[in-house]
């Protein structure tokens, strides 16, 4: 077993050959696009009339002066900070509810999970008709009580809320599954021990269940946060980001810039910012929360 002998070299080559397909795919579809995006953000968009040229941070400067960017940034901040905790809260509540011994438990679980398996586009189409004034479901219900339904999607004050409600409805059922699995892995004796000590259900949830669910919560939180930045399918159907960008989110704006304005360079700039933001949030969550989480 001499190191560097012909056998060792052949093994090395063999190993690298085995790795090559995976490495190639990773580089071609992950690393190269990321680097290319970063590079492109320092150039102008090249067209036949105006060839691309290097402009350093001009795209970034433009971004800081772009009111639409700040608007969608703020929208996204509001969107994330509401959808993430609310869908988590609903997911936990529903999971605890369907973890009980209740009649038709399977059916209730199914019902909660249904939104998850529907495609986002289909969901958005359904909700579009919920929200539509005059003929929408919400309007019909409010109308029965003699209220004129607001123009939910046509109003800058309500449109973002509508999009948020839809996102929570879609996400909560999905996250419920994770919580349900986590709840079922908690030993029953813990609750019995607490019951003997006289702990109320709320006290037990606050002091035992919730802390023990924290690993799930971290996972769900990061997923939910990423979803809130990357899941924008419903905007295409529901609002197209309007009215007046009131419901537009970062990624939707990036899509518009890239494919409607055909400005790949500026889209790259925005993408770099989005990636940096997501990376920062993920690192923050892992480092700050991880210390306070008990892993079994």
């Amino acid at each position: 077993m001499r190191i560097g002998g012909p056998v060792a070299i052949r093994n090395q080559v063999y190993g690298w050959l085995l790795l090559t397909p995976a490495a190639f795919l990773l580089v071609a579809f992950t690393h190269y696009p990321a680097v290319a995006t970063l590079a492109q953000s320092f150039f102008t968009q090249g067209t036949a009339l105006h060839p691309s040229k290097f402009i350093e941070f001009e795209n970034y400067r433009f971004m800081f002066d772009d009111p639409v960017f700040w608007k969608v940034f703020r929208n996204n901040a509001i969107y994330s900070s509401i959808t993430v905790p609310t869908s988590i809260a609903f997911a936990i509540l529903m999971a605890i509810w369907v973890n009980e011994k209740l009649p038709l438990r399977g059916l209730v679980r199914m019902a909660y999970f249904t939104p998850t398996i529907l495609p986002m586009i289909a969901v958005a189409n359904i909700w579009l008709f919920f929200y539509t004034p005059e003929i929408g479901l919400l309007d019909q219900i409010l109308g029965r009580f003699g209220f004129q339904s607001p123009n939910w999607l046509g109003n800058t004050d309500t449109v973002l809320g509508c999009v948020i409600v839809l996102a929570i409805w879609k996400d909560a059922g999905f996250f419920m599954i994770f919580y349900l699995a986590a709840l079922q892995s908690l030993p029953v004796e813990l609750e019995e021990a607490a019951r003997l000590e006289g702990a109320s259900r709320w006290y037990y949830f606050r002091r035992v269940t919730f802390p023990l669910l924290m690993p799930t919560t971290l996972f769900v939180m990061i997923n939910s946060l990423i979803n809130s930045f990357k899941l924008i399918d419903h905007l295409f159907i529901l609002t197209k980001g309007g009215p007046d960008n009131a419901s537009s989110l970062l990624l939707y704006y990036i899509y518009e810039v890239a494919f409607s304005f055909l400005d790949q360079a500026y889209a790259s700039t925005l993408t770099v910012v989005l990636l940096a933001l997501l990376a920062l949030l993920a690192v923050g969550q892992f480092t700050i929360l991880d210390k306070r989480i008990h892993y079994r």
Partner: protein
Amino acid sequence: MSRIEVVSLVKEWNGTRAVDNLSFVVPEGTFTVLLGPSGCGKSTTLRMIAGLEDVTAGRVLIGGKDVTRADPAKRQVSMVFQSYALFPHLSVAENILFGLKVRKIAAAERDKRLKRVAGVVGLEDFLDRKPAQLSGGQRQRVALARAIVAEYPVCLMDEPLSNLDAKLRGEMRSEIRDLQRKLGMTMVYVTHDQTEAMSMADQVVLMKDGVCEQIGTPDDLYNRPSTAFVARFLGMPPMNVIRLACGAQGCRVAGLESDGSVTVEAGDGWLLGVRPEDIALDPSCGIPGQAIAVDYLGADSVVRIALGEQQIIARVAGHCQLGSGQPIRVSWTPAVQHLFDDQGRRVA
């Protein structure tokens, strides 16, 4: 104040009876062991006393008060679970104080009790650790500490030592027994281990298939088993129960000819019990048999012997040198005989 009465207790699951008409009394300040093979209903009984399981019929009284339908928290009982049920994310101290915090006991009082209990169970140096950082024995102590810090008069334990190794189990047995005496707790303790029952209990309730076989002191159960089941359940190795064939000529070991006759007055098919340690081996006189195997245990040897088609076990001092297949004769004095009828009930 803390006497426990279990009256005609029944637990049914989908029509099958897990506990069937069970009654016993645990006098205040004493130690009762619920003993039996797994699935006999002993844990279910304990959980009904704790209030963790609904009672199908019958009553549970603690300190003279009917608590059959009372909330577990209202019964003032503490409990040690087989799995310990420690909160994995809380430190040892937090685990011990969990119940005191729930009941909003003042911080100063909590600290005082924590210090005292930690001293009692020897956990002073581990209060900041998480359960995962403790050994099995230490976790056991935390569970114990959590039970006694409540200072409830009644303590229930569900196979608390079954996850420990043999040596530690022996130590903890005496510790728990000492603690119970010192604190004057009324204890109900579930186990399938007869050693624990024999060494710890003031009173043993031996159960089988949800029914009580015998209630009594360890001494009663060992020396005067009321059924053949009890006889066979206790003792290491357990009592030999020999089937008899009786006719006009008297009784003999079933399957043997006249040389297997015994001096007892019994009916056909009755059972004769003899403890292994009461059997004498002699090459010349007694019932003829053949040695099958010998287990040498140091101080003594356990010899398996075939009497016709039945087998018995004898325990003899020293290292027995019998080879397999070697003929041997066994005998015992009539004073050590136990006699059970064909239903397994004690006759004499």
